[in-house]
């Protein structure tokens, strides 16, 4: 593990009293490798390590009697801070319903996550509408309708071929039906598909969501940074949900996402069942990424 590598690196140095800049650079290089192996985007990893190096070269590590311990502490702290110092929950609108637009790449887990989120809110006594805004994918509405029933939510769909109008309609239905939340399940799309990204921009304008959440697969590699940056620049993400954390992926995509978009990860998906949605814990994610 990284901690082992760093402690053995520093163990050979303790006889020399204090650390040299070269020692810190070597340790920083180890951290960079660990982050890359954890799927953190290259640019994000290098920026991260540069900042760690800066801090470590400051008074803290060079004059510490336990430099290895101090260095690892800096890495952990900085990773936790970057991932989100404090927990950010779903932000409810001052006037219900809270409209939540859920978006992301194909297959990331949006539809399942919408239902999980609906089930979570339902468990806390809320009235939730799940809206089928994916009009492209075969049986997308059928999938959401089944999950909506299992989640105890109200299912909304429309025969319109105008996604923005469907979502505006869902938001209005939320008002009429006195819903606490309306969750818009949009179609998977590529961040480089101009037309589909434009559809999301129009949908945002029409439905005026209070939350715009990017659903990102935690097994995603280097591409996570570009995806997060693009979705953020077009829509202004208010948060994200990282899925499939029950995989063995180290989840460096979480750091990439947060570093490039500032979007806080509000929840994580940890399985295929509707109950498998948990709060995001930055310190647990930090340990996971560092391996």
């Amino acid at each position: 593990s990284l901690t082992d590598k760093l402690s053995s690196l520093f163990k050979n140095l303790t006889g020399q009293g204090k650390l040299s800049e070269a020692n810190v650079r070597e340790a920083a290089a180890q951290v960079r490798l660990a982050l890359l192996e954890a799927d953190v985007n290259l640019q994000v990893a290098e920026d991260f390590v540069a900042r760690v190096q800066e801090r470590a070269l400051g008074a803290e590590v060079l004059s510490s009697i336990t430099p290895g311990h101090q260095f690892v502490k800096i890495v952990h702290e900085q990773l936790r801070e970057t991932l989100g110092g404090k927990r950010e929950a779903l932000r409810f609108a001052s006037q219900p319903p809270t409209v939540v637009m859920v978006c992301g790449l194909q297959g990331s887990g949006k539809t399942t996550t919408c239902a999980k989120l609906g089930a979570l809110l339902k468990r806390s006594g809320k009235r939730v509408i799940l809206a089928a805004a994916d009009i492209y994918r075969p049986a997308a509405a059928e999938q959401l309708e089944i999950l909506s029933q299992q989640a105890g939510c109200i299912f909304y769909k429309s025969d319109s071929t105008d996604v923005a109008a469907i979502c505006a309609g869902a938001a209005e239905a939320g008002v009429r039906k006195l819903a606490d939340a309306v969750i818009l399940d949009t179609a998977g799309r590529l961040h480089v598909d101009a037309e589909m990204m434009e559809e999301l921009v129009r949908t945002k304008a029409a439905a005026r969501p209070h939350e715009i959440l990017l659903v990102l697969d935690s097994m995603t590699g280097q591409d996570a940074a570009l995806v997060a940056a693009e979705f953020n620049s077009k829509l202004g993400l208010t948060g994200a949900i990282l899925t499939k954390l029950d995989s063995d992926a180290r989840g460096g995509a979480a750091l990439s996402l947060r570093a490039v978009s500032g979007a806080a990860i509000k929840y994580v998906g940890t399985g295929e069942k509707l109950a498998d949605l948990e709060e995001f814990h930055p310190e647990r994610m930090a340990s996971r990424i560092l391996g």
Partner: protein
Amino acid sequence: LSGKRSLSAGELDRLEGLLLSADVGVEGTRRLLQAVRQGPSELDALERLKAEMLAILAPKSDYRPPGGENGGKPAVWLILGVNGSGKTTSAGKLGSRLAGRGLKVMMAAADTYRAAAGEQLAVWADRAGAELVASKPGADPAAVAYDAVAAAQARGTDVLLVDTAGRLHNKKHLQDELRKIHATIGKRMPGAPHLGLLVMDAATGQSGLAQARLFSQAVPVDGIVLTKLDGTAKGGIVLAIAQELGIPVAWAGTGEGAGDLQEFDAEEFVEGLLG
């Protein structure tokens, strides 16, 4: 870089960055850079790199013939992979492609877990003009596969595509279920399935290697269908998979329509990765 026999440190750094950004991985990148430094001197650096990548990607052995034993029918192809990778869509695309060649195609909806999985595959079967065998949600996927093989045998089907539920490679009970599906197909038709296709998202990071390792321990994996190459991800993880396990990429998914499937072209892939 092209035309240069040896690279400066700065150039090697930039090359390292390019490979790492393509999900080639730390170890894979190190190996490729070494090959560039030590490669045949009559080639320039870029040619050495491309040659090494193509050598890694070249299939190590022939595919198992997609026909049944003794050329029997149907050829049974098992479609597997992690959640959301594009299995059902890829099964649909393959179905359309095979039907387009005049083959009689059948699809089996052996994903009995996911909401509306059968309905989703039914749309694809319809698009391909293929027959569909499905069952009720919650049914035993191995039983569905068994029945589909029996139906395909009875109806003179040329190719049977068996779509399975998404499953994480690190979930033992789901890998066991996949083994059971595989074994049950073999009970009905010795030698089947004839082809195991691992469907993998091109944006997958290092987890892709673990996926290939564990899936190929559960069932024989003959090739990869690398999906969503129409995105910006380069799919570099397939190099490590080819290197370690000898599993080649068979198909490339380049979109969401029935026609968005190509036979994998290693040269095109390497060109795309190197930008």
